[in-house]
């Protein structure tokens, strides 16, 4: 632990880091999902990151959330019950989810945030089943739109906690195809250019190495060691020659997150 680690939480670090990845006028897809830590990773951090980007350097950045296009992030509902979502004001509420699916297929989304139960060296993910597909050890939720995020969104960011059970050599079921088997194998399957951009965890950040397209450690969060990271992974990632420290949030970012964006600890709760 260095001196800074006490001054911000890991969730705040990740939020600020992801916010800096958002460019002006980006359209970001955020899921509606689940509970507890999974909610923080899939919904809370992404919403906070886009709002922070809006307030700092990307006023034109927007989200598509549930089936609301450009909900007003300056007034995130305090209680995420169905009714508060229904009455959350937005620029548009298309007639059904098919509109979002069409936008995905025509590559109208710049950014998405995804989490998974398993992820492999090439960013392929599994949210469907652990073990044998036909009689699994753990049946998970299915697919939702994760396959289309990985297939069509220009810059997918994976937000997941580092864990040996999550970072596996081979996922049990490929729900969404990242860089497939590395190299040019992704486009050889018939998919468009793309694939996950970064994997942002609670310990470190990874990208995918040019050429091999294998996951590559690019920065360690303040106070985290390379060994600690490798110990939490089921495969050995590439390591960037420029391996550095994940930049810490600045005072202004922390102030905005704490006082404006998430004063009631709804988004970054756990």
């Amino acid at each position, binding site marked *: 632990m260095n001196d800074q680690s006490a001054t911000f939480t890991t969730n705040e670090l990740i939020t600020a880091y992801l916010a800096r990845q958002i460019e002006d006028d980006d359209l970001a897809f955020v899921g509606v999902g689940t509970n507890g830590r999974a909610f923080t990773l899939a919904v809370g951090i992404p919403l906070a990151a886009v709002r922070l980007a809006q307030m700092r350097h990307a006023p034109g950045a927007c989200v598509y959330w549930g089936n609301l296009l450009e909900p007003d992030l300056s007034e995130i509902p305090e209680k995420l019950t169905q*009714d508060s979502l229904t009455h959350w004001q937005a620029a548009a509420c298309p007639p059904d989810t098919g509109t979002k699916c069409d936008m995905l297929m025509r590559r109208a989304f710049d950014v998405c945030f995804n989490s998974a139960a398993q992820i492999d060296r090439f960013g392929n993910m599994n949210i469907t089943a652990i073990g044998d597909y036909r009689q699994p050890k753990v049946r998970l939720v299915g697919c939702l*739109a994760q*396959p289309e995020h990985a297939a069509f969104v220009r810059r997918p960011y994976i937000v997941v906690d580092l864990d040996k059970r999550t970072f596996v050599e081979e996922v049990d079921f490929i729900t969404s195809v990242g860089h497939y088997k590395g190299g040019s194998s992704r486009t050889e399957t018939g998919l468009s250019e793309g694939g996950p951009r970064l994997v942002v965890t609670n310990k470190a950040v990874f990208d995918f190495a040019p050429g091999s397209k294998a996951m590559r450690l690019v920065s360690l969060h303040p106070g985290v060691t390379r060994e600690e990271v490798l110990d939490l992974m089921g495969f050995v990632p590439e390591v960037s020659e420029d391996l550095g420290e994940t930049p810490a949030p600045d005072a202004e970012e922390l102030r905005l997150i704490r006082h404006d964006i998430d004063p009631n600890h709804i988004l970054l709760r756990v």
Partner: protein
Amino acid sequence: MKEKLTSLDTALAPIASGASVMFGGSLLRRQPNAAVRHLIARGVKDLTVLSWAGTTAIDMLAAAEAIRRYEGIYVGLFNYGLAPNFRRGVQSGRIEVRDFSETAMVARLRAAAQGLRFLPIRTLFGSDIAARNPEQIKTFACPFTGEPVQAVAAAETEFTIIHGYKGDKYGNVQWPVVRDTDDMDQPMAAAAKRLIVTVEKIVSHEEVKRQPSLTYIPGQWVEAIVEVPHGAHPVACDTIYDEDDAHMRDYVARCATAEGAAAYLDEFARSVADHEAYLDKIGAAHLASLDVSGGAQ
């Protein structure tokens, strides 16, 4: 116009064990739970079940061991976690699953609505969703470019059950101007062969025809419409009532074991005479506490 207003009994009578049924709603909204409880009480089994993001409706059917095969994009309990009974059913091998991603499921619904055997997508190359389901997802060559495209088979079920806001006796179902639409109820209705709709309230045809653009399910597509207030309980019907958090927590707790789930169904589906008795059991005061209709415009 043909009158299609009937009882839950009559509307659901044609659905026998072994049928294929699509269920509407998404996550904690407009799951046709009253209809599902009725099917469970009747002991219907061996269903092929399709859904968009399925929660309570699918999990209760799984608890009743009524599902032989499931096809859809999601089964879980949203912010209440994984779907305990569905998990048990799949993990035991009792429920066979074919997973579809959202664009795949949308294409399947639209294909059925368009009388087509399939529609193309470009989403699932390299995925195990496609690899494990060659009978419903096939790669073919684009007739213009020769590039690979994937055909997904139309979603054709014998029955479709949707819970809606309000409707008239001719089966025209309308939504409020401000509403949640994170679902595929309208495309499902268009894709349906035999469509049964439960609604919160039956209103006059005169009220419907003043704002025809709010009719998202035309009576022409409907076989039967039934007035079932709180028909989505314990989940929400947005703009009318919110999800029942206490009931959902109780559901999850009791469904930690198969025995607990069976006891839940005995209590809330099998031992109650009908939907009115169910509502009495839940209690008027408790239902009133879920009311959000004041907030609707």
